[in-house]
């Protein structure tokens, strides 16, 4: 029953756990600061450009029959979310994709051509 070892191990253990995690906090904070600096520079320069061509008025997209205005709004929102606010995008037309190949055939082609 080595009392010194027991107490020593407890305090050492707590100290090491805290030390490791504090080092990690520091690393995360540094990483966060670097990321902010890098993305800050990127948003600063495009911030000048869009001021000039403010919201270009795009003509309404040519939409196939049967596609509701709600669907058009959803598709536009999805595209905007995917591309981010990098550049303004105008949607020219929305058409249904044709069923050129049955789904099973497509699945077979994908399976065979997927790179390992």
């Amino acid at each position, binding site marked *: *029953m*080595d009392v010194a*070892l*027991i*107490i020593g*191990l*407890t305090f*050492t*253990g*707590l100290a*090491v*756990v*805290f*030390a*490791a*995690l*504090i*080092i*990690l*906090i520091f*690393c*995360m*904070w540094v*990483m*966060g600061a670097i*990321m902010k600096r890098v*993305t800050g520079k990127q948003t600063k320069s495009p911030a000048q450009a869009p001021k000039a061509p403010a919201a270009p008025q795009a003509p309404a997209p040519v939409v196939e029959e049967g596609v509701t205005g709600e669907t058009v709004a959803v598709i536009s929102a999805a595209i905007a979310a995917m591309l981010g606010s990098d550049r303004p995008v105008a949607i020219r037309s929305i058409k249904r994709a044709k069923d050129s190949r049955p789904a099973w055939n497509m699945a077979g082609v994908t399976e065979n051509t997927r790179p390992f």
Partner: protein
Amino acid sequence: MEIINMFVDTIKNLALESGFAGIDFKTLIMFIISGVLIYLAIGRQFEPLLLLPIAFGMLLTNLPGAEMFHSEFFQGTSIDYGQVLHDGGLLDILYLGVKLGIYPPLIFLGIGAMTDFGPLIANPKSFLLGAAAQAGIFFTFIVAAFLPFYSLQEAGAIAIIGGADGPTAIYVAKTLAPQLLGSIAVAAYSYMALVPVIQPPIMRALTTKKERSVIMEQLRPVSRIEKILFPIIVTLVVSLLVPSAAPLMGMLMLGNIMKESGVVDRLVKTAQNELMNIITIFLGVTVGATATADVFLSFKTLGIIALGLAAFCLGTAAGVLFGKIMYKATGGKVNPLIGSAGVSAVPMAARVSQKVGQKENPANFLLMHAMGPNVAGVIGSAVAAGVLLSVLG
């Protein structure tokens, strides 16, 4: 006459060799205990993914005459692997994955592939709460080490139950106290299932209503690059500081970087599903198999059950108290309830923080904020395990 004699003799020999001849009082008790655990796993859904294989492994290992597991092969400092491979039963061979330290890191690989460290990266202060909750481990170690019937190694293995992390507990116990592995695993998983019952009273007792009602501000969005750099940084820092934690931490972060990279989707899918499931089955059954009658039915097991509960309670209390310190230090921006999520029972402890917080203020969504300390606790308990292994192992 000869034929009848031979017939009777054969039956007599079969009867003597059958398991029924080998059953004694202790075996029956183990059957009943494993039956209770099976009921808890199936009927009450106590962490069934692990508790069911553990309970059934306990049943299998106590079958007299089946020779599926020989705990005597694995005792002592040097194991005769030739004997294990030659004379061992099915569970002996599968147990090699535990003894050689293969299964727990692979489970961590799967866990890393399922974990989102975003909330932690967005609010790195959560690391402190993850560290504070590991105090439960070390305070339990003091108590266990001062009790006369546990050696230092056994105390360390019992203390790690407070980390609330199954694979970590198994990884430590198989090195420090393999004879207690079965009891420790059963205790660890049972208490993890009981987190929603154990934590709330402690959380409410240590916080004021005002502290519980704190609404924390929205987490900042975390970029993909940060999520990819995080596993690399953590692996380097933790493994260089505490090399014995490298297998666990390395595999956890490998799983995570595979998930965040987005370029190895097939591997991530396997790690999350098939690999996790296979290793879980093997780990559960073999850990349960270590719970033979002679090691499980002893006062040490009762002590493990009591100390395990103490470890959970101390960890929760330490986390909440540190949360209060952070509340005061940040001028009321941190809700102390998320401190209890530093006990790394992911995601159960975070959900408990959410529920207790919602009782005070139904519009308070602490879940994402609590996930930060929750996953930080996984890292913290792995570091604590590394410290225990390097000093006591």
